[in-house]
């Protein structure tokens, strides 16, 4: 998880089944980008909180709130959760992206944060960036034009 205030760009590359989440408070020009890989932390002693959607998002919200982020004006955007490989006869395989997306949405709802834009699912990896000065979120994906979320 990285965050910045005032100016700068934060970027995370090649989100596959992982999910990128940006939180942006336009009043403070405070923006953060979190990259989670799995839906849930199962081992409470695991220190890598940002690896998991549940613990990662909560820690991110806690941290940004400490820097003054106000939930009611925060703009939330999410991207990723692709399924790149389809194995015939094993539909469970590779649906981790879908499970990640579901968990991210659940935690956001519990935290009373509304998603204002998303680009999830599909079969292509995505690169996600946020410009902290403007709050502009850009998604880059193979063979597609850049997309502003």
């Amino acid at each position, binding site marked *: 998880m990285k965050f910045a205030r005032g100016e700068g760009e934060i970027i995370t590359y090649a989100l596959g089944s992982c999910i990128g989440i940006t939180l942006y408070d336009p009043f403070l020009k405070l923006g953060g980008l979190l990259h989670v*890989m799995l839906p849930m932390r199962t081992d409470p002693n695991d220190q890598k909180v940002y690896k998991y959607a549940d613990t990662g998002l909560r820690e991110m919200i806690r941290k940004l709130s400490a820097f003054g982020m106000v939930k009611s004006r925060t703009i939330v955007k999410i991207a990723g959760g692709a399924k790149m490989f389809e194995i015939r006869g094993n539909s469970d395989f590779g649906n981790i992206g879908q499970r990640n997306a579901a968990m991210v949405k659940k935690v956001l709802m519990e935290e009373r944060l509304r998603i204002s834009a998303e680009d999830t699912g599909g079969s292509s990896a995505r690169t996600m960036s946020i410009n902290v000065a403007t709050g502009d979120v850009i998604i880059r994906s193979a063979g597609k034009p850049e997309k502003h979320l």
Partner: protein
Amino acid sequence: MRIKSYEDMNLQELDVMKEISSIGTSHAATSLSKLLQKEVRITIPEVSVLGYEEAVERIGEIEELVAATLVQMSRDVNGLILFIFKMDMANVVLEKLIGNRYASFEEMDELSYSALEEVGNIIICSYVNAFAQLVGVDIDLSVPSSTVNMLGGILTVPIAEYGYETDKLMYINAEFVMDGVRLSDGLLMLPDIESLNSILEKLGVLS
């Protein structure tokens, strides 16, 4: 001592993996050579246990488009096996099989795409067959699945699949030498930790 993660393997165990990989890779090279009717030589494989960033760096650029074929292993050994084609390697194969070269994967048509998938599958199957025979295990393989995607995204597939067990990948890297050009073979064989233990046990090296 049982292994809990890839990075727990000691030098001797890694050496054994290298030895089996070397046999697997040479079988794969033989199949490729027969298919392309071309001499294919290999370098001695290196087996490394890498974190995600290191693995990406070793293979290429994070946003680089590559074609990958993925096969799932089951029965005695569970896990994934991934073969990654970079553009240079893909072109050598496609030029010989179809008579086409491409500047990028995005230009590729359906025929070339399925040719690559098939070659990836053949390489994986001959690798796994040699491996299974040597270790004395039965391995079932799934139907192959392919994608053209960013390298970084593709490597998150095994990382996420084993995310609750380990953060590392076992990367077996040999080079295929064709027409005097060295091409990285980009093969990742990823038995789950349970299977890795049983492989090492079978081979009598688990200390």
